[in-house]
């Protein structure tokens, strides 16, 4: 019976949706047959940003603007926003909860730390089922045991695990439908990002920073998990399509010395976004290896870059490198968010990305052409700016030293203080864009690092060339900084300062609000135009996840996972002082604005 009810709800919602889509976008196609069976169709995913009664994709739509048109909650009514329930992830396993929840047909799908997944009743918070991946002993995730969320497709909910597996569960039962190895966790691979669904394919990257890990993007048949194509992001490596070699990424040795491209790094650990208008997948790529840039002269493509891929065959359509020849661990995986830029009376199909390196870039998303870049954190000192071709204007003395020129007893090499720190002007936490205010909202951190070659360094019991570093706040009173940025001018319109580093994503709404969490435990709401804080609620543990909003029974709801963790508590020093005493947790909080309070 329950099944039938849900089917009817879904069909009703769909009818509404098709009506709305038909009015605003005449080119919208008929929903596909899968939708009629009550599952999540490709069309549902493409329309996600326009259907506030559900959230069926990471980023509230494949463009990942994290914008919902819902208006009931605004700066006046938000006073009436009340907690509806708090669902505990349970067990002894807590640590960082970085998941963005999904909601469809009265069910919330949310992942937890240690590769766990929960389905809960979206109205009552009652648990429907729970899935715990059996993690092997000996996994060594670099930066906490997080998971960032799942993807819905047809009757499946798909997510990745810390031991580098992709698991598809039945939405109704939580039973495994298929399970595939992304790679061997013993070779240093892992998976923490939310998968992306594009035209029936599940698109993933890889996590891992060990020697031999080369970043790549992969597409699998979302219904079976069978591999369709692979695209390594480092030049010289061959891609595959339908089990056969396809084309080489770039050319061997174009921007790498010797055979170092073979192990070049560039992990695609944050996943990607998709733009239906250009039919391109956008992925960010991580830093090159080895960490010391002097050992690998050249630009080292495509590390620390954004690349655009054809979803049909995995070919790279364009690439843009934010930090060529990275020497600071500016792991450029940050998401590229498509938006329409109004400039000089014209609308440009643009995209924006807030890079680890501290600059906010706007590119032409059709061809990767550089439009503009501006600093979104203060006191950047590794580059004086970005030139008209999009290339950094490096400040030579703030590049960590050449180890082969190191002198002295400890042979430390030159220690430099570089801003931002390797944790980035922005790390993993997703930005948001509001088409109403035409502003981007960027959760950023103001910190730098002392970095040097550590001569007394050992790996696997043998001498090694390591890096020593200490992260330090740039300002005395705050590290975290939520900024509203005008992509047309690069100007910071408002800036909310937070004592502890910000580590959660943002949500923007048609009600003119921006939501984000803080390590201090608050979910906060800000006036999207002015940055005025209009609401906060303490969840009892740090919030380092991305909030969502949806409409149900005529009321607007807000949901967020809570649980302190992530990479910040793993790094000590002065930064740890700002988060000392914050307790771990693991829960999903739901809030709603009761109908009687919403009318205005």
């Amino acid at each position: 019976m329950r099944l039938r009810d849900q089917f009817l709800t879904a069909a009703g919602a769909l009818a509404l949706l098709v009506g709305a889509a038909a009015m605003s976008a005449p080119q919208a196609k008929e929903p596909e047959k899968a939708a009629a069976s009550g599952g999540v169709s490709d069309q549902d995913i493409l329309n996600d940003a326009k259907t506030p009664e559900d959230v069926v994709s990471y980023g509230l739509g494949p463009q990942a603007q994290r914008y919902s048109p819902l208006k009931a909650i605004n700066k006046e009514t938000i006073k009436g926003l009340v907690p509806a329930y708090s669902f505990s992830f349970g067990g002894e396993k807590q640590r960082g909860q970085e998941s963005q929840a999904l909601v469809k047909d009265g069910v919330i799908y949310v992942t937890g730390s240690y590769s766990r997944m929960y389905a809960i009743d979206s109205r009552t918070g009652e648990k429907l089922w729970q899935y715990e991946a059996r993690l092997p002993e000996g996994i060594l995730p670099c930066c906490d045991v997080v998971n960032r969320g799942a993807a819905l497709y047809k009757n499946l909910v798909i997510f990745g695990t810390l031991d580098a597996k992709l698991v598809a569960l039945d939405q109704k039962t939580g039973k495994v439908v298929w399970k595939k190895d992304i790679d061997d966790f013993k070779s240093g691979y892992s998976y923490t990002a939310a998968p992306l669904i594009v035209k029936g394919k599940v698109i993933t990257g890889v996590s891992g920073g060990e020697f031999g890990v080369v970043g790549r993007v992969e597409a699998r048949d979302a219904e079976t998990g069978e591999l369709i194509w692979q695209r390594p992001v480092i030049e010289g490596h061959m891609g595959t399509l339908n089990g056969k070699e396809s084309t080489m990424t770039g050319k061997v040795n174009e921007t790498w010395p010797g055979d170092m491209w073979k192990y070049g790094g560039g992990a695609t650990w944050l996943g990607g976004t998709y733009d239906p208008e250009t039919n391109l997948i956008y992925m960010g790529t991580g830093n090159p290896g080895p960490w010391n840039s002097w050992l690998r002269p050249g630009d080292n493509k495509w590390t620390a870059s954004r690349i655009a891929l054809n979803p049909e065959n995995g070919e790279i359509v364009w690439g843009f490198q934010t930090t060529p020849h990275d020497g600071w661990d500016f792991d450029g995986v940050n998401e590229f968010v498509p938006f329409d830029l109004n400039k000089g009376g014209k609308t440009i199909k643009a995209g924006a990305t807030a890079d680890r390196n501290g600059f906010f870039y706007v590119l032409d998303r059709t061809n990767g052409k550089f439009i503009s870049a501006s600093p979104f954190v203060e006191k950047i000192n590794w580059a004086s700016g970005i030139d008209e071709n999009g290339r950094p204007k490096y400040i030579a003395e703030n590049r960590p030293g050449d180890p082969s020129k190191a002198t002295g007893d400890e042979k430390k090499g030159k220690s430099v203080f570089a801003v931002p720190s390797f944790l980035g002007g922005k790390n993993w936490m997703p930005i948001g864009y509001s088409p109403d205010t035409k502003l981007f909202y960027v959760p950023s951190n103001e910190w730098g690092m002392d970095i040097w070659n550590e001569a007394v360094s050992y790996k696997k019991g043998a001498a090694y060339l390591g890096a020593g570093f200490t992260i330090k706040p740039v300002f005395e009173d705050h590290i975290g900084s939520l900024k509203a940025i005008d992509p047309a001018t690069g100007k910071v319109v408002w800036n909310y300062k937070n004592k502890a580093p910000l580590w959660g994503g943002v949500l923007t709404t048609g009600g003119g609000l921006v939501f984000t969490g803080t390590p201090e435990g608050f979910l906060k709401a800000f006036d999207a135009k002015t940055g005025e804080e209009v609401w906060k609620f303490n969840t009892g543990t740090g919030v380092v996840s991305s909030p969502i909003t949806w409409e149900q029974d005529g009321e607007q709801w807000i949901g967020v996972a809570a649980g302190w963790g992530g990479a910040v508590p793993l790094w000590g020093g002065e930064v740890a002082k700002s988060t000392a005493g914050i307790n771990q947790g693991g829960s999903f909080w739901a809030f709603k604005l009761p109908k009687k309070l919403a009318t205005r």
Partner: protein
Amino acid sequence: MRSKILLGFTALALAAAPAMARPFDEVVKDGTLRVVLYEQNAPFSDMKDGKPYGIEVDLAEAIAKALKVKAEIRLVDAGENVDGDFRLNLWKGDLAGSPLADLMLHVPIDKLLAIRNEQIFMTRPYYDERLAFAWRKNAVENFETVGDIGKTPIDVEGNSASDAMLLTAQGGQLRENLKHFKSFEEAAKAFLAGDAPILAGTRANLEAALFAAKASKDEIGIKELRLGGPVKLSWEIGGAVKSDSRDLGYAIGDAMTAMAENGSLKSIFEKYGVEYAAPKGY
């Protein structure tokens, strides 16, 4: 792969509460010494036919015998650095909740490393490790100095001590010579199959690989070169225990001393084709 995962779970199940590293009397009372060794670290420790195998496996068992307990050996992946391995295996534990060990072997005995890891206590060293080269005598005419390398290709394990040394030595002029492999085993295999004329590695790596391949000393030589650069060319290897288990560390040290004196340490190394190099002053 699969069997190993299961093995891991059994170990977890046995240690119901998160097991702590323990002082000497607790180890004796319990009757087992939990030892952590590196996986894929031949000839010192590796998995062979589903069992731990190598110099340090034998050494751990000999130490346990001397303490009149049983050795419980667990092989682990090396982390980003040895400091991290101390944290994961000896004093804090990993995120998966694996049990802590009483003893870790293959630890570089270095004063600065000890100072910045106050949670652990190092035993006396048992071996003097050095970086070296194996060279095919018919392919490299003279192999006495760095200058003799010229443009000769070198097979090397990526991210290893030898790799770090070669990437930074002599102002980086040897970088283009390097042919990187994922493991020393793969590099050695390529070298022995006639790939590059030179193979870089630790002395123990090289000796064991040549021994296993029954390579002739007339055809392949081993040479240490004094290269200038920031990476150490030699270091000593010992064990580490948690700092509140110093008495265990001393008891292990005494056992090692007795083994060095009665020649059994030397025999263990020789079994794997490695010439025993005593640490300086021992």
